[in-house]
């Protein structure tokens, strides 16, 4: 089998990801380019005798090295073994796309051109003669609507044909290594004039129509508030029946099932204890939140691909620049709602170091699903009358502290003006659901992987510490208990004087949701000491019951979408014994202080490491220390106010 490398090149927003997703499906991988934090997508696809390695280069307008994105693309094309260039063009903006095509000619590589978005172009009255284009450049040209899969099937065989027949683009004359601006423009403009026909009468552009509302200075902000509300409403209500189901599946099915197997094999009881306390108590606890995270990623990816997010930058620039921030900083800040790590990566779109630093200082304060998991757990338990209010207040507090941090930095270490603002607003598009699902799944897989590795390891570590020294009778006397007790003086001013809570904060530096898994492990170990009723367990019957419950969960999830209120918080949570035990360790004031501490303190290894890569570990550590102090301070003040 021959292996060939295909570089996917095109402008931003031409649907490269959608096309690659349509070709490669689930083999699509998202990573980073070495040394920099620009996102790198690649995929391996087998076709005939070939294994085709697709590498998606960053979306760029030109190969002139203006920013990191262009440098990566140029380096890849120059230094890597590229066998075929897959150049994706925007049918609605063909002349601009051809500027980049012109710049690819000097590389003398087999090339195929894919003209995407032909449906949108048709609506705008643009007709493209692909045969003429193919004739002029001497390469194969395919028309596609990637979001609907139209034309996609032709891509793989055409790549092989271009490779085998060495179909290299040319414009009839030798072009120099470095095209001048004018040459490039002349080539693009000349081809454009020959292949594009425009109709006089066209449909009214839907994007213009929508923009009248979305970019309206008053309506636009109301729409933004509604979008964010809906984002969380759907994320919560749709996922919550599944969250409950997984929780039940672990506790009412898996644990008894394993216990009955262990019993029947006459294996030592410590195995079922390990499973119940470390595996289900720790990892399982965190895994119950997979539906919530999946739905939240789904919605944020949907927003990202729909073209809405850059419009928020336009809308809010007026307010943000008064705070010394660039309108574009709103993009990473919104992405931070999904996960702080890609948000930090997204700051590369900010042109100045000062702005980048300001936004990176703010991002860890924007709450993410990992924190939401902790908040919803505590809010439902301690504020069952108004959990939504508490969670909203925490989110707002995070945003407030983020702006406070930015203002302080702007007045002190990071004085200076705001750089220019240039951004393209892509047309509104209904993203291909397959692509949105696939990209969200890539993120969720990462979360599950983390649960299976990092969180699992942390859970085992805590469980072992809880069971050492050997024969320890009460968890309080175990190593974990001792460590927690030494930490109590630090957290006592915040009202947390319970060793279980302080111990769980240590491994939580790996990822915030570990605070819950550790509590799960610690409290289940305690619970174990209380006598439990043994019930008989019938595998088939229990399995059937779980399937019935799953069907109900699916039904509940969909019906929740037809109500405008946040339903998740309307139902009172039943009291599990684990919850009951945790409830005894906190009161309302200390629970609030604890949540605020989790909110503000950058307790996330991923965020810290990404910050370190982007701005250096010295600054990242400084921000980390700042967040700890601030978290402690705000937590302590809150505790004393509400006590």
């Amino acid at each position, binding site marked *: 089998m021959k292996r060939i490398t295909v570089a996917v090149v095109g402008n931003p927003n031409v649907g490269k990801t959608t096309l690659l997703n349509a070709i490669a499906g689930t083999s699509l991988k998202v990573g980073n380019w070495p040394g920099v934090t620009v996102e790198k997508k690649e995929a391996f696809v087998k076709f005939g005798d070939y294994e085709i390695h697709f590498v998606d280069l960053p979306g760029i307008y030109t190969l002139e090295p*203006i920013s990191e994105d262009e440098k990566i693309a140029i380096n890849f094309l120059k230094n890597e073994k590229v066998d075929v260039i897959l150049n994706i063009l925007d049918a609605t903006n063909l002349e601009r796309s051809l500027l980049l095509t012109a710049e690819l000619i000097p590389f003398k590589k087999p090339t195929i051109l894919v003209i995407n978005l032909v449906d949108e172009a048709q609506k705008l009255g643009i007709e493209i003669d692909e045969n003429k284009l193919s004739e002029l450049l001497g390469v194969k040209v395919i028309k596609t609507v990637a979001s609907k899969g139209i034309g996609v099937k032709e891509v793989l065989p055409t790549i092989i044909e271009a490779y085998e027949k060495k179909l290299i683009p040319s414009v009839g004359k030798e072009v120099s290594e470095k095209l001048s601006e004018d040459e490039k423009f002349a080539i693009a403009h000349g081809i454009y004039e020959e292949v594009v026909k425009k109709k006089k009468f066209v449909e009214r552009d839907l994007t213009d129509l929508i923009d009248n509302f979305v970019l309206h200075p008053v309506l636009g902000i109301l729409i933004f508030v509604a979008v964010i509300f809906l984002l969380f409403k759907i994320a919560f209500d749709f996922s919550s029946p599944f969250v409950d189901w997984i929780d039940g599946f672990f506790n009412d099915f898996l644990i008894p099932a394993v216990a009955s197997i262990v019993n029947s094999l006459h294996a030592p009881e410590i195995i079922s204890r390990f499973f119940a306390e470390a595996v289900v108590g720790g990892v399982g606890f965190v895994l119950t939140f997979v539906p919530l995270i999946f739905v939240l990623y789904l919605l944020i990816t949907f927003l990202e691909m729909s073209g809405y997010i850059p419009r928020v930058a336009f809308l809010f620039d007026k307010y943000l620049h008064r705070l010394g921030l660039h309108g574009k900083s709103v993009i990473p800040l919104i992405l931070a709602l999904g996960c702080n790590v890609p948000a930090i990566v997204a700051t590369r779109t900010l042109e100045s170091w000062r702005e980048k630093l300001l936004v990176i200082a703010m991002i860890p304060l924007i709450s993410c699903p990992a924190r939401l998991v902790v908040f919803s757990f505590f809010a439902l338990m301690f504020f069952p009358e108004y959990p939504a209010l508490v969670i909203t207040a925490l989110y707002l507090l995070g945003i407030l502290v983020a702006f406070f941090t930015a203002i302080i930095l702007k007045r002190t270490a990071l004085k200076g003006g705001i750089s*220019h603002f240039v951004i393209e607003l892509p047309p509104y598009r209904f993203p291909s659901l397959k692509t949105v699902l696939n990209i969200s799944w890539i993120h969720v897989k990462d979360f599950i992987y983390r649960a299976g590795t990092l969180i699992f390891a942390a859970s085992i570590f805590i469980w072992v510490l809880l069971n050492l020294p050997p024969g320890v009778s009460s968890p309080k006397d175990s190593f974990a208990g001792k460590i927690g007790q030494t930490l109590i003086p630090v957290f006592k001013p915040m009202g947390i004087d319970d060793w279980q809570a302080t111990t769980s904060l240590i491994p939580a530096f790996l990822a915030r949701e570990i605070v819950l898994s550790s509590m799960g492990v610690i409290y289940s170990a305690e619970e174990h000491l209380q006598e439990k009723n043994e019930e008989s367990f019938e595998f088939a019957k229990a399995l059937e019951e779980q399937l019935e419950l799953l069907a109900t969960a699916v039904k509940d999830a969909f019906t929740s979408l037809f109500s405008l209120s946040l339903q998740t918080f309307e139902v009172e949570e039943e009291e599990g014994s684990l919850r009951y035990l945790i409830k005894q360790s906190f009161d309302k004031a200390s629970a609030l202080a604890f949540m605020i501490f989790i909110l503000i303190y950058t307790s996330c290894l991923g965020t810290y490491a990404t910050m370190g890569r982007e701005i250096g570990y010295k600054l990242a550590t400084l921000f980390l220390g700042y967040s700890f102090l601030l978290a402690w301070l705000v937590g302590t003040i809150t505790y004393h106010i509400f006590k």
Partner: protein
Amino acid sequence: MELRAGENFELLEFQDGNVPFLSKIKSMGLREGKRFKVVMENGRVYLIKLDNTRIVLDKSLARHLKVKRI
């Protein structure tokens, strides 16, 4: 000439073309001889539309564009 929302302009030339941001808007398709419409302004930024591209650019950058109204 000042850009005004709702009006159409033709770009005559870039003044002081050394600003690095200008090469970015050039590669986005805004070049000498291009016609564009100023769709709206919001605080310090304009939203312009040329062909099928919508570009947001700030007013201090727009000062480098020498334009005529059409």
